[in-house]
C-alpha cells in the first residue's frame, strides 16, 4: 500500500503541468481563480486548445477519440487543470450526452454527433428538470406524441444551464402518460433552432444568467433523434446520472480554491496583522483543509477501486455530499475573509470582459456572488438530500 504516484504517473503529471503552463491562456485562468464569469468564447477557446492536444474528451474510449487515460491519469489531469486555473469543462456534451450516445445510440447517431462534440461544433444543454420535476425526475410532464416519423414535443424544461449558448438539447420526454412514472419516458435529441423552441433566461440571486427555461411548442423532432427505445428513456437517464455523480467531489477545484483563499488571507488584514495569522481564522482554515484532505484520499480510493475493475457505487454519493460541503465552506471563508469588502455588488467587475480598475481588489469582486452561486452545488445533480436517500437505499439497504 502506498499513496505516492508511480514514476509513470509522475511523468504524466509533469507533462500535464508543462502543457498547462504553456497552453492555458492567462486571461482565462485569471477569471477562474477570481471566481469571475466565463463567456462562451472563453469556454470554446479552452476546449479547442484541449481538443487539438487530444485531451478534451478525457473520459472517452480511445476508439472514439479519447486519450486512453487511466483513472489515475484522469484524476491527475483534473487536479492539475484546476490548480492551474483551467475552466471546468462544460460537461453536457462531452461527458453527459456522449456516453449515452455511445452506450445506447445507433451507429448513425454516433457517427454524426460524437465528432461534432469533439470539434466543438455542437454545444449541448440538458433538458431534464421541469417546474414540477426537480429531485423527482420521474415526474417529467413534457409530452412527445408520435406522428409518423416525428415526435411532436410540447412542454417546458427548466434550470437549463448555459442553454443560451447551446444549439442542441437532450431531453427526457413522456411518451406514454398511462405508464408508471419511470416508464413511458423517452430520451430525445433536439435541435435548439427547431421551430417552436424558445428560451427564457432565469436570473439567479447573484444577478447572473447561467440557467434558463426552455419551452417546446409543437416542436417536431425526427424519430431518428431518439436514443434507445421508446419508453425506455429512464435507462439512459439513470446511466447518465451515475456518470454525472462521479467526480462531483471536485477535489481539484477545492484545492485550487483553498490555495486562493490562503493567498487572500495572507493579504487581508485583521487587527493590524494578516488574517492568516489570526488564531481563530487559522482554525477555520485548518478544519476545512483537513476535511478536503480526507475527501481527496477517499476519492483516490474509489478511483483505485474503479481502476481495479470495480464500479463506483453509492460511495460517490458520499463524495458528492462532502465535496459540495467543502466547496461551500471554502467560499464561505473567502467571503468571511473579506469583511465589509464582500458587500459591494459591482456586476461589471465580474464580467468576462471587464478590464477596468477594481473597486478594492480583483479577488474581492466576485467573492460574495460566488458564495451564493455555489449554493447550487448541494442542489443540482441530485440534491444532497437525494444523495442521502441513495446512500440509505443502495449502501445501507434501509
Amino acid at each position, binding site marked *: 500500500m502506498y499513496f505516492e504516484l508511480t514514476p509513470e504517473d509522475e511523468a504524466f503529471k509533469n507533462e500535464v503541468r508543462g502543457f498547462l503552463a504553456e497552453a492555458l491562456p492567462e486571461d482565462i485562468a485569471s477569471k477562474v481563480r477570481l471566481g469571475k464569469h466565463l463567456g462562451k468564447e472563453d469556454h470554446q477557446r479552452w476546449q479547442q486548445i484541449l481538443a487539438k492536444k487530444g485531451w478534451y474528451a478525457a473520459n472517452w474510449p480511445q476508439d472514439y477519440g479519447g486519450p486512453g487515460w487511466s483513472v489515475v491519469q484522469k484524476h491527475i489531469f483534473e487536479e492539475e487543470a484546476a490548480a492551474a486555473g483551467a475552466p471546468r469543462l462544460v460537461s453536457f456534451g462531452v461527458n453527459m450526452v456522449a456516453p449515452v450516445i455511445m452506450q445506447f445510440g445507433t451507429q448513425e447517431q454516433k457517427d454524426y454527433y460524437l465528432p461534432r462534440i469533439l470539434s466543438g461544433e455542437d454545444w449541448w444543454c440538458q433538458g431534464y428538470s421541469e417546474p414540477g420535476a*426537480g429531485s423527482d425526475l420521474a415526474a417529467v410532464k413534457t409530452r412527445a406524441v408520435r406522428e409518423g416519423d416525428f415526435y411532436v414535443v410540447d412542454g417546458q424544461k427548466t434550470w437549463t444551464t448555459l442553454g443560451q449558448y447551446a444549439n442542441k438539447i437532450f431531453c427526457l420526454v413522456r411518451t406514454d402518460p398511462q405508464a408508471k412514472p419511470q416508464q413511458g419516458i423517452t430520451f430525445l435529441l433536439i435541435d435548439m433552432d427547431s421551430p417552436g423552441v424558445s428560451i427564457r433566461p432565469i436570473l439567479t440571486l447573484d444577478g447572473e444568467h447561467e440557467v434558463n427555461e426552455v419551452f417546446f411548442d409543437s416542436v417536431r423532432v425526427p424519430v431518428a433523434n431518439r436514443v434507445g427505445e421508446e419508453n425506455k428513456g429512464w435507462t439512459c437517464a439513470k446511466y447518465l446520472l451515475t456518470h454525472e455523480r462521479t467526480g462531483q467531489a471536485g477535489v481539484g477545484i477545492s484545492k485550487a480554491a483553498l490555495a486562493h483563499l490562503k493567498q487572500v488571507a495572507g493579504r487581508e488584514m485583521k487587527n493590524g496583522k494578516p488574517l492568516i495569522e489570526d488564531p*481563530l481564522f487559522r482554525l477555520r482554515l485548518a478544519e476545512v483543509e483537513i476535511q478536503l484532505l480526507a475527501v481527496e484520499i477517499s476519492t483516490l480510493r474509489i478511483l483505485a477501486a474503479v481502476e481495479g475493475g470495480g464500479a463506483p457505487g453509492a460511495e460517490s454519493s458520499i463524495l458528492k455530499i462532502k465535496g459540495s460541503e467543502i466547496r461551500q465552506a471554502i467560499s464561505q471563508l473567502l467571503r468571511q475573509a473579506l469583511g465589509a469588502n464582500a458587500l459591494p455588488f459591482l456586476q461589471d467587475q465580474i464580467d468576462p470582459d471587464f478590464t477596468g480598475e477594481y*473597486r478594492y481588489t480583483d479577488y474581492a469582486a466576485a467573492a460574495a*456572488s460566488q458564495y451564493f452561486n455555489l449554493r447550487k452545488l448541494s442542489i443540482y445533480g441530485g440534491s444532497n438530500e437525494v444523495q442521502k436517500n441513495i446512500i440509505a437505499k443502495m449502501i445501507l439497504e434501509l
Partner: protein
Amino acid sequence: MDFNLTEEQQMLQDMLSRLVRDHYSFEKRMSHYASQEGYSTAFWQQLAEQGLTGVPIDEAYGGFGGGGVENMLLMKELGRGLCLEPVLASQIFAAGLLQQLGNKEQKEKILPLVASGELKLAAALTETNSHYSLQHVACRARQQGDTWFLSGQKSVVVGGASADLLLVSARTAGEQGDPEGISLFLVEPWAKGVTRNAYPCIDGPRACDLLLDEVMVGRGGVLGKPGQVFTTLQYQQERAAAAACAEALGSMEEAFTLTLDYLKTRQQFGQPIGKFQALQHRMADMRGELELATSMTLLAASLADHPPSDERSRKLAASRFIITRAARFIAEQAIQLHGGIGMTWEYALAHHAKRLVMLSHHLGDEDTHLQRFADLLKAS
C-alpha cells in the same frame, strides 16, 4: 421581568407592520432597488410623515424618543419587508452618535432635520483594512488653527450614498490600531476634497467609498472631544448591532414562513415535500434557531441603552453571535429546502437569504462576536 409591549409600543408595531405590508410588496421593493436612489423616497416620506423617522431621536429634537425596544420594533418590520431605506444607518447609528457626542448647538441644528427625515446622516467609520474594528483608523486629520484637514479613505459606508451629512472618524494622534487618538468629524459629502463612489451592496442597500483629500472641517464640525471618541463609537456600534439583530429577525421570520409555505405546497414523489421527515426535522431545527434568535433580539433591545459595561458588551456580543449564526443557517437551509427556485432573482426568498448571510459583513461576523465574548468571558 416583562416581555410585553406597552400600548404605545404595540401601536408603533402595528403601524409599521401595516405600512410595510401595504407599501413594500416584493415587486415594489425590487423596483426601489433598481431606482436611481436605490430606495423609495416616497416610502421615506411616508415614514417621515408618520413620525417614524423620528423614532430613535430624542424628544428634545423633535423625535419620538424611542429606545432599544422601539428601535427593535422599527427594524424588525423593515427587515421583514427587506426595506432599503437608510433607517438603521442614518436614524439609529449616525444620529445616535450625534446625540451622544454632539454639543448643544450641533444637536439643535441637525437632529430636528434628521428626525423629520429632511436630512440623512451616515457614519463613515470603517476602512478597507479595518475588518470590523473601529480602532484601525488610518485616515488622518491634521489641525491648523481652528481648522482640521482630513485625508484618507473610508470604505463601504452603508447609507453613505444617500447621506446629506457624514460623520467621519479620523486619527488625530497615535498609530493605526490605537484606541486613543481617534476623532469624529462632520463632513458634507459635497465639500471640497471629498470623492464619493456609490454602489449597491449585494444584500440590497447602497453604500459608498469616500476619498478624502485635505478636506477642511471647521471647529463646529468636531464631534466630541478630539482623540477621545473611540469608546463612544464602540458603544454606538453595539447599539446599532442590537437594532440590526431585529432587522435580521424580521427577515428570518419571513424567510422561514416562505419556506414553510413552500414545503406545504411543493409536490415531489407524489406528496408535499413537507411530508418528508428529514425536511420536517430540518424545519424544526430552523424553528429552534428562530426561537433563540427571537430571545436574543429581545435581550439585545433591552440592553442597548444600558450604560457601557463588560456585561452589556458581553451579552450584546452573544446576541449578535446567535443572530448571525441563525441568520446564515436559516438562509442556507431555506435555499436548500426550496431547491433551484430558492436561488432565483425573481423570488423574495433569495433576497432575504442574501440579506441574512451578508448581515455578518456589516457590524462584525460570527467569529468576531464569538471572540469578543471569549475575551470577556467571566472565569466563574
